[in-house]
C-alpha cells in the first residue's frame, strides 16, 4: 500500500454552528407547543399531536445533531431499519390489542 496524502483526510461535511443553534431553538419551541397542547381538549388528536411533535423533534436530532442527513447511504439503511423494526414491534402488537372485541368468539362464554 502506498501513501496518499488524501487518505489522512476525513472529507466530512461540517455543519455550521448556527444550524445547531437553530435546531436547538426549534426543539425548545416544539417542547413548549407539546406542553401547551396537552392543556387543550382535542379528543383523540391529543396523542396524535404529542407523538407527531416528538417524532419531529427526534427527526431534527437524528438528521442534524447526529449528522445522519450527511451520512452514507449504508448509515441511512441501518438507521432506517432500526426504526422500521420498532414500527413492526408496535404496529403488529396493535393489530392484536386494537382488534380484540371487534368480533365475538362463538365459543367464548361471557
Amino acid at each position, binding site marked *: *500500500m*502506498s*501513501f496518499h496524502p*488524501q*487518505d*489522512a*483526510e*476525513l*472529507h*466530512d461535511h*461540517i*455543519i455550521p*454552528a448556527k444550524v*445547531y*443553534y437553530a*435546531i*436547538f431553538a426549534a*426543539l*425548545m419551541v416544539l*417542547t413548549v407547543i*407539546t*406542553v401547551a397542547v*396537552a*392543556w*387543550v*381538549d382535542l379528543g383523540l388528536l*391529543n396523542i396524535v399531536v*404529542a*407523538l407527531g*411533535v*416528538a417524532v419531529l*423533534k*427526534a427527526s431534527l*436530532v*437524528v438528521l*442534524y*445533531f*447526529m*449528522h445522519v442527513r450527511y*451520512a*452514507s447511504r*449504508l*448509515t441511512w439503511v*441501518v*438507521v432506517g*431499519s*432500526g*426504526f422500521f*423494526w*420498532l414500527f413492526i*414491534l*408496535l404496529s403488529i*402488537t*396493535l393489530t392484536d*390489542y*386494537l382488534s380484540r372485541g371487534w368480533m365475538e368468539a362463538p365459543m367464548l362464554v361471557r
Partner: protein
Amino acid sequence: MPEAAVTHHGAHAIPRLQHHFDTMAQQKEAATLGMWVFLVTEVLFFGGMFCAYMIYRMWHYDGFVAASRELDLGLGGINTAVLIGSSLTVALGVHAAQTGKQRQLVWMLIATLVLGLVFLVIKYFEYESKLHLHEAHHAAAMVRLFPAAGWFEVTGELAPLAGGIRLFMVLYFAMTGMHAIHMIIGIGILAVILRMAMKGEFTPQWYAPVEIFGLYWHFVDIVWIFLFPLLYLVNRHG
C-alpha cells in the same frame, strides 16, 4: 524499495489510522456505522418498554391520566430543556473538534457534564417526592409507593383507578430509571472523553470518540423526547 517499507504499514504513515483500514474516512465510517448498529439495538430495547406502555395505556387510560397528573410537570419540563441544552453543547463540541478548536471542545464537554449532572439531581428530587407522595397529596386521594404494607397504596377517590395508577408508576420508574442509568453511563464515558480532550488528543483528522459519544448522548436525549409527553402529558385538560 526502502521508501515503500517505511510507508508499508498505514499506521506509521498516518497517525491514528489502524492498519486494517485504508483511509481515515473509511475508519470513521466504520466507527459511526458500528455505533449506529448498537443504537438500533437500543431503539428496540426501549421499544419493548414503550410497547408495554402503549398496551396498558389503552387498557387503563383513566388510571394513566390520574397518575400522570401526579407527576411534577415543572421539573419534567425543566429537565427536558436541560437535556436539549446538553445535546446542543455536545453538537457544538463535535463542531469544535472538527474545526480544531481544542479549548472550545473542552468547555463544551464540561458544559455537557454539568447539564447531565443537573438532570440527574432534578431526577433525584423527583423520585424522592414520588417516594414520599403522602406529604404532597390532596386529602381526598392518596397514592403511596411504599406504604407500610405492600408496594402501592391508592386510597380515596382514586381507589377505583388503583390498577392503572400502579401500572403507570411501575412503567414510570422502569422507563425513567433505565433512562437515568443510560445518563450515568454517558457521564462516565464523557469523563473519559473530557480527559482525552484536555490532553489535546483530538484533531480535525481524528475525533471519532467525540463523535461516537455524541451519537450516544443524542440517543439518550431522543428517548427523553418521547418519555416526556408520554409520562407527564397524558391528559392535562378537563
